[in-house]
């Protein structure tokens, strides 16, 4: 049976863990707040861009862009967005599972590129490793992300790879993140949506300089915006997951402290009782 001294030590160390986890929780909450704002600020732009492209391309006949065409190459690229740090619950492991499954389906032709080292560590045995990107800070800035996106698009344009995907955690809320694999190139414009749009737009726009020139600009922009929102999603998800994980940890610590304290108090009370009995029975024997 544990003695009081051991229990005291244990309580003290659990209290220290509690301090760390609650500090991490607060930090994550602050970071989540910022990340959430970033993603919420980026989404309207991305949505509007996509909407505009859909509308214009539905109204324009026979338009084609290299980002929209299917390529012949069997090779595919997957860019995985994960974190550099752990202690964020299922954030990385769930994504790793999805990546492994996707890689198993695609087989040898898939090359996996990484941002963030955690999922790389979890999946490196199972997949065909490509490049790993690193940044000055732990997360890529817009310019850095743009560079990577252009690099991948370059591979696609030259026909070296036939498809580009990204794997990341979609941010719904701090407790709901969803690991997803999304195809980014070739971009798909749903043809059923196209027909519907053609009907619902009884008028055409006036374009300056020309619809083709505008689409030529917008399509790469939309591609980069997709990549950037994926990165923002992934970042918000990371902080959300970490906050939730740390919240659980705080709860667990408190529970552990409570039960350890109870145990210690019981032991202490038992010791006092024994001592009292000894004193009383000693006094009794002297009287008798």
């Amino acid at each position: 049976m544990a003695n009081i001294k051991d229990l005291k030590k244990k309580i003290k160390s659990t209290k220290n863990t509690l301090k760390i986890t609650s500090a991490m929780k607060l930090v994550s909450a602050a970071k989540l707040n910022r990340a959430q704002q970033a993603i919420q600020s980026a989404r309207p732009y991305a949505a509007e861009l996509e909407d505009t492209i859909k509308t214009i391309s539905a109204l324009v006949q026979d338009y084609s862009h290299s980002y929209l065409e299917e390529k012949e190459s069997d090779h595919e690229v997957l860019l995985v967005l994960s974190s550099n740090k752990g202690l964020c619950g299922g954030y990385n492991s769930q994504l790793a599972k999805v990546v492994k499954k996707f890689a198993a389906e695609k087989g040898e032709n898939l090359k996996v590129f990484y941002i963030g080292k955690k999922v790389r560590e979890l999946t490196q045995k199972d997949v065909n490793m490509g490049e790993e990107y690193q940044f000055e800070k732990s997360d890529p800035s817009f310019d850095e992300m743009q560079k990577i996106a252009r690099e991948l698009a370059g591979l696609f344009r030259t026909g070296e790879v036939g498809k580009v995907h990204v794997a990341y955690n979609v941010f719904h809320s701090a407790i709901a993140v969803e690991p997803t694999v999304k195809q980014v190139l070739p971009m798909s414009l749903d043809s059923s949506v196209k027909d519907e749009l053609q009907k619902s737009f009884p008028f055409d726009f006036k374009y300056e300089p020309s619809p083709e020139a505008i689409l030529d600009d917008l399509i790469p922009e939309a591609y980069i915006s997709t990549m950037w929102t994926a990165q923002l999603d992934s970042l918000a998800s990371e902080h959300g997951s970490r906050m939730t994980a740390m919240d659980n940890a705080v709860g667990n610590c408190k529970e552990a402290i409570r039960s350890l304290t109870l145990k210690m108090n019981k032991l202490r009370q038992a010791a006092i009782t024994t001592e009292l009995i000894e004193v009383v029975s000693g006094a009794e024997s002297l009287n008798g």
Partner: protein
Amino acid sequence: MNNFTVDILTPNKVVAKDIPAENVVIPTLKGQIEVMKDHTHVVEKLETGLVTVLGGADDADRNFFVTVGICKVLQNKITILSNTAEESHEVDLERAELALKNAEERLSSTLSDDELVKYRRKAERAKLRIQLLKTAR
């Protein structure tokens, strides 16, 4: 009440959302255009420049700096999608002046064609930012 509104969106920020307008001046590739209520549906490429939103009698006038992008006019709603956009009060005058100074210094030295274009653009952006601050005052 105006039912003619303007949105200005960038990849990082919603700069303006549903701001009421009576008259909007937008810099496009072909020069400035002025858009009022019931304007025809238009999609145009933007040029780096200043967007002026005149609010009319009820609402305040607002000035923005925008770089490349597009603007869409559809059913009494203007949507401006730009790489960067700043409202007059967000412009950092010191930074703009420093950028202008640096760019002009670079332009006075010998440069390759690409660099020349790059620094000319930088100088132009800085000038526009400074101009924006002056017009807003």
